[in-house]
């Protein structure tokens, strides 16, 4: 493989990372809101949140992507396909992240909040200083897991015409008649990216376990 082709693959890998990272971040923000809605005693919030989660977890991501891609123009929204791709990935991962976060929030031991209550912390302070930081630590392994899943699932966005790592390997295979080479390189690149994410995750976990000490 020439340097030029390798550079193309690297560029595509970068795009995969970017697509996934943006989607994970947006998904985390939406997931937090859905989690809050789901934990709310207000049924007007919790029922739609539950519906959202079951909908986006129940429909294959590929179908979701195709639906969003075809729905946007019908609604008169003209956006580049990459935006449709990020929207699809974000909305889907948000459902899973909402569930992870809910698990984290519900696993914060009640005694820790009672201790906060006893020193006079307001409900808001209890949330921001105690509940959320502990829930986030409890959720971190699941978040890393989800990031890896989304990294790999991002290969699906090639169906809406976004050129990322998988699509690039496909294109180059077709033009060079060397599919084994390009798919192996793509596979290796996915593997390395996932290793980095997993490694970063366990490093963060270790650092957060006792604060700064590893």
């Amino acid at each position: 493989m020439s340097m030029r082709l390798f550079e193309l693959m690297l560029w595509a890998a970068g795009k995969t990372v970017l697509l996934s990272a943006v989607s994970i971040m947006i998904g985390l923000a939406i997931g937090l809101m859905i989690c809050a809605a789901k934990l709310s005693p207000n049924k007007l919030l919790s029922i739609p949140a539950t519906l959202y989660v079951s909908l986006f977890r129940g429909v294959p991501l590929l179908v979701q992507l195709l639906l969003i891609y075809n729905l946007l123009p019908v609604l008169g929204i003209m956006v580049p396909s990459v935006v449709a791709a990020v929207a699809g990935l974000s909305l889907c991962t948000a459902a899973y992240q909402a569930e992870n976060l809910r698990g984290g929030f519900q696993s914060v031991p009640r005694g820790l909040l009672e201790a906060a209550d006893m020193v006079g912390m307001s409900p808001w302070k209890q949330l921001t200083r105690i509940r959320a930081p502990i829930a986030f630590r409890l959720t971190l392994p699941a978040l890393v897991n989800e990031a890896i899943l989304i990294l790999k699932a991002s290969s699906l966005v090639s169906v809406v015409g976004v050129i990322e790592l998988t699509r690039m390997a496909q294109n180059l295979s077709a033009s060079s008649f060397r599919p084994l080479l390009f798919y192996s390189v793509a596979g290796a690149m996915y593997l390395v990216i996932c290793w980095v994410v997993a490694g970063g995750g366990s490093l963060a976990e270790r650092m957060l376990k006792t604060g700064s000490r590893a």
Partner: protein
Amino acid sequence: MTRPAVTVRDVHKSFGKTEVLKGIDLAVPSGSTTCILGPSGSGKSTLLRCIAFLEETTSGIIEIHGEPLGFADTGDGGRTRLPSSEIRKVRARIGMVFQQFNLWPHMTALGNVTEALVTVRKMKRKDANEIGEAQLARVGLSDRGHHYPAELSGGQQQRVAIARALALEPDILLFDEPTSSLDPELTGEVLNVMRELAGGGMTMIVVSHEIGFAASVGDKIVFLDEGKLLLDGPPSEIFATPRHPRLQQFMETYLDRGAATLL
């Protein structure tokens, strides 16, 4: 006669249909130590949690230095819920130490002790740290401020929890089985801190199975049985033989358990 630090008047507490506290009356004089004994399930924790307002009583009145906590007497036999600002003010005089320590795992010992000074009392970080370090020194942990709870022994964690409560200068400290989740060799260090606090004039209510501590430090022993205060008096009276049969039975169970760990 000065007003008691804590007054409990005809307090009932039910969880659903089960009545756990069946009319408790109790006065805790300022500066004294009251030890609550009683078999498992008799309602000791529930009573303490009601005094901390972690549970709301079903009926009855609790007063802290004469000020009603949570609910005030309307004078015609009923009671009315007080505004939350009022509740917070009265509650600020009470500190609580839990059986499971309940330290916040993501903060250091010093962080745990200073958290409320900064976020609730709005102190500057530097001033809060000064107080925090002094309180940690008071429980013998001046060299452990920067350790996280997971890096401390159970006895050290419980002492940090005591320092956390002390930092807010409460008038009254509540302890719910503070040594029950500790290995036997670690209970001493916690009991010693509590003994010193009692000697220093802190008002304390202690739920504990440490009968030795209760007998030597308690100014008053209260024996709770099936949601009722069966006995209430100084240790010399309560522990004098012949004992109330329920207390005798309780102590035998306790001593059996103690003996069993020796084998």
